[in-house]
């Protein structure tokens, strides 16, 4: 793959839910970001109001649903079969009857690893996610933050290029929020092609970790009435704007202005 190559292409996607047109002509590309000498994955933020179809879009990318029209393609235009894309769902579902270690082990086995490989990979991930002490716990014994980390770790037992995350910042305290943002960057930068697509309402966190922001919204008529399904209304290329990959971005004097601008654009969606 060369710099700028398309890793994920969502082209003219339409989808209805009952009679309601949810997505309408949705099109965007995620390209390989390259920094010389630094392994740089992609972090794409997808912002949009509640009910606009963000989760629907993630389900399409994950292969859980088929679009009524249009296509979702991976690197080189290859289709993305179900199971090839990691997806951390909003409620962090886990197998309630299995321990944390077994949840990760099952994820390894379902992805074709042998039982021994899956176990050693699971143990390594638990260590890395500071969950080793919770290995024998059941999901019901975990806090919200721990549960989220297990759900993310589970998706990493088998390395996949894409990781979709639905509202990864919701309900987290400031310390946990910082942990998760670090974790997302770490996961993205594990491989040059790794791409994390996160759906969120948290504009600030999305700005701090993304290299691209897509604003998903619906068109309105002069009276303010919704007249279409959702599509990309605005794109922020944060690399081009000099705002990506900057640990000091939060204290940059220009940050409040761009945050305000994105918030204004969000309100108009």
């Amino acid at each position, binding site marked *: 793959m060369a710099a700028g190559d398309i890793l994920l292409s969502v082209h003219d996607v339409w989808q209805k839910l009952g009679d309601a047109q949810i997505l309408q002509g949705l099109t965007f590309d995620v390209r390989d970001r390259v920094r010389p000498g630094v392994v740089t994955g992609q972090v794409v933020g997808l912002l949009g109001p509640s009910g606009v179809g963000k989760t629907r879009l993630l389900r399409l990318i994950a292969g859980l649903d088929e679009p009524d029209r249009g296509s979702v393609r991976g690197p080189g235009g290859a289709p993305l079969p179900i*199971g090839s894309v990691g997806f951390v*769902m909003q409620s962090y*579902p886990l197998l*309630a009857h299995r321990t944390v270690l077994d949840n990760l082990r*099952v994820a390894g086995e379902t992805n074709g690893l042998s039982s021994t490989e899956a176990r050693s990979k699971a143990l390594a991930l638990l260590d890395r996610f500071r969950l080793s002490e919770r290995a024998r716990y*059941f999901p019901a014994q975990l806090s919200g933050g721990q549960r989220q980390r297990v759900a993310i770790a589970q998706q990493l037992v088998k390395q996949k290029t894409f990781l979709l995350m639905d509202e990864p910042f919701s309900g987290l305290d400031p310390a946990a929020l910082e942990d998760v943002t670090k974790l997302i960057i770490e996961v993205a930068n594990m491989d040059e092609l790794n791409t994390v697509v996160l759906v969120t309402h948290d504009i600030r966190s999305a700005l701090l970790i993304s290299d691209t922001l897509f604003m998903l919204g619906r068109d309105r008529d002069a009276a303010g009435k919704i007249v279409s399904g959702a599509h990309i209304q605005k794109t922020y290329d944060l690399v081009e704007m000099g705002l990506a990959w900057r640990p000091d971005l939060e204290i940059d004097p220009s940050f409040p202005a761009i945050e305000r601008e994105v918030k204004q654009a969000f309100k108009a969606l």
Partner: protein
Amino acid sequence: MAPTAPPATKTGPASGLLRRVFFPNQSLGSPFLLIVTAFWVAIALTVWSASPWASLPGPGEVLRAFGTLWWQQGMGPELFSTLKLICHATLLTVAISMALSYASIIAFFRPLVDAISKLRFLGLTGLVFPFTLLTGGGYTLKVWLLTFGMSTFFVTAMAQAVLEIPREQYDYMRVLGAGEGRIFWEVVVRGTLDKALDTLRQNLAMGWAMITMVEGISRAEGGVGALILNQNKHFHLAEVYAVLIAILVFGLLLDYLMAVSVRILCPHVLLQRVRR
């Protein structure tokens, strides 16, 4: 202005305990719960001992009748015969009901499962004749009557439990790359095992409650059902109560064993249950 302290309330150890015992939605530790239970048992025994009703023999009389039944009329073997019957019927119920409930994830089998579930509205009494013709009577008749009685309720509860598995659980496993076989095992079988055991526990109680009626249909093979009906016939009231108490005690024992098996096989379930 400095914040003012809230008014002091009277919460000594004694008033705290009283509050926990008598106020709604309070949790009580095991030792205190045992004391409360012992209190109610004592009340029940006192009422029973002081009972003026001739139709209710006293505890001493029932205890003596129990001794007679146990040592002279073979109550032990009768109980064993009943336990064998219920175990046999339960095994068949579990095999048939679980297979049908799990089959409900396949559209082809859903009407069949629904139809079997609806049969729970049929009483057993009317079914004795056709079941006698089908099974030839005796022990087999009793096993199948009990199996039928339990299975229709078991299938209803378990098919509902399978139906209520959130779609998200299936999607989550698919995203992990699991095939439909692994999804079936993890989500449907293992994921509903606690509900299956709970349902079995309830159905076992129902089967146990039906046992005297079913054993009364064919008394040749004995059992506590036959025993109690024979005592009824001779109006041996103390013996009848002795058998009833034995049925209750063994029923509670079976229920306890089921509760223990839930604890062993599904320890995660206890973590999700809050007792108030």
